[in-house]
């Protein structure tokens, strides 16, 4: 019986620390999406991204092919972790290199790039417990006229 009490303490300790990991990662976790899964991070924040891709650095930017994705997968491509998987699974087997551009607006923030455009996503990796250099850590500054824009919209 006493063992159960201590096991419960251990469970809650792990849960408390694991759910708080995003605080230890550099950058705004709601912007980068790092450390937000299976934690109590806010899901109310929206992030709208304009995504473009190109196979070689000298190619023009093109809209990505999202025909094989479900609606929820398309909505979640603004998460860099999922976008990296998308690049690796859809483009990398054929083209062997892919460059992405994610121009995002996080709720009231002014539009700004979310990932570095000069990084080849086919060779990029994703670290779970620390910041990934190919993701830009902070969103743009807050737009003071966001509420007016929202009302008009």
């Amino acid at each position, binding site marked *: 019986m*006493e063992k159960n009490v201590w096991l419960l303490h251990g469970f809650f300790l792990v*849960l408390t620390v694991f759910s*708080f990991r995003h605080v230890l990662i550099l950058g705004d976790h709601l912007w980068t999406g790092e450390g937000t899964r299976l934690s109590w991070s806010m*899901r109310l924040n929206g992030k709208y991204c304009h995504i473009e891709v190109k196979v070689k650095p000298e190619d023009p930017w093109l809209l990505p092919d999202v025909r094989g994705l*479900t609606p929820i997968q398309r909505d979640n491509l603004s998460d860099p972790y999922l976008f990296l998987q998308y690049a690796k699974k859809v483009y990398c087997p054929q083209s062997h290199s892919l460059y992405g551009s994610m121009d995002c607006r996080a709720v009231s923030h002014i539009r700004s790039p979310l990932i570095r455009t000069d990084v080849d996503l086919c060779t990029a990796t994703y670290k779970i417990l620390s910041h990934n250099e190919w993701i830009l850590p902070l969103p743009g500054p807050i737009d003071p006229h966001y509420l007016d824009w929202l*009302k008009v919209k």
Partner: protein
Amino acid sequence: MKKTKRNTYVDWWKKPISSGSLSVFRILFGIFIWMDAIAFYVEVRHYFRSQIVYFKYPGFAWWPSFDLQTNRLILVSLGLMGIWIALGWWVRTSAFLAMILLFHLLFQDASFYLNHLALNLLICFLFIFIPTNRSYKLTFQKDSKRRIHQPIHRYHLHSIQGIFFISYFYSGIEKIRPDWLNGDIVAMNMAGRSEESQLASWIIRSHPAICVGGAWAVLTLELLAPFGILWSKSRIPTLMLLFLFHGFNDLTLNIGLFSYLMIFAMVLYFEPDWPEKLEIKFLKWYLRSRMDHSIKPKTPPQKQIPLKEGLDFYLDEQGNLVFTESYHLKRGHCCKNSCRHCPFNS
């Protein structure tokens, strides 16, 4: 045996308490799982289909992904597990299976993620280890021992409460950021719901300041609610505020059934034996209402006191027995015989 501080601490966690509130929560949680399964089943095409790409979590690339029909079947099974949990049948097994199904839904494709599903997963995990059907289990057996409320240990109840306390407090910490405090995130979410919710539409168009006030109020409530619930004097006001908060969220924000789960969880924050007390009150009321009021209870025969001539009555010239006013007052009511000295004439 000498009682150490450690023993006292462990004893506090092991103290037997009523299983009433935890069992009521088990019923509501089972219903919630069933409701959730239906909600996802209705919109299943939005989440799953026989897609080309599946997004995986690190270390879980091997987890299988299924086609639309199999996922439909999984949601139906999840709903059934919810019913089983609510009825109190094979709860540990049902919770284990529900946990596996929820785990599958979350891990077959990483784009399908909601905090409340992770919360369900954790609760199902705890339901495997703690006894949740010691009260209010549907049974057809006549064995009276099975119908009696059996106690649980304090840590059984606190483990489930703890999950909700963490989720409230961490949600509060999450909101200490400029775009929440200036009301923009609230406004954005209300704008997203304004087509279907008149309340959200009214707020966003006429009174956007409510978004700022609401954002600060929510932050304060989420940070303080876990502590407000612990203190008996602030418990009821905190629960009332939480009820209003979740009700308002359901009306104005696009957050699915999450508000229902948080409202259902409120049954855990009262005294653990509240369902039994309510049950006793209801039984008393029921028995009283079924009592036959036409049968008057027998009153014991009153002791006869002999009347005294001169004090209680006298004989007039015709020889009639006339009661005095003093006698009438002693009797206390009018006999409607028009007595000569009746004090109740008026």
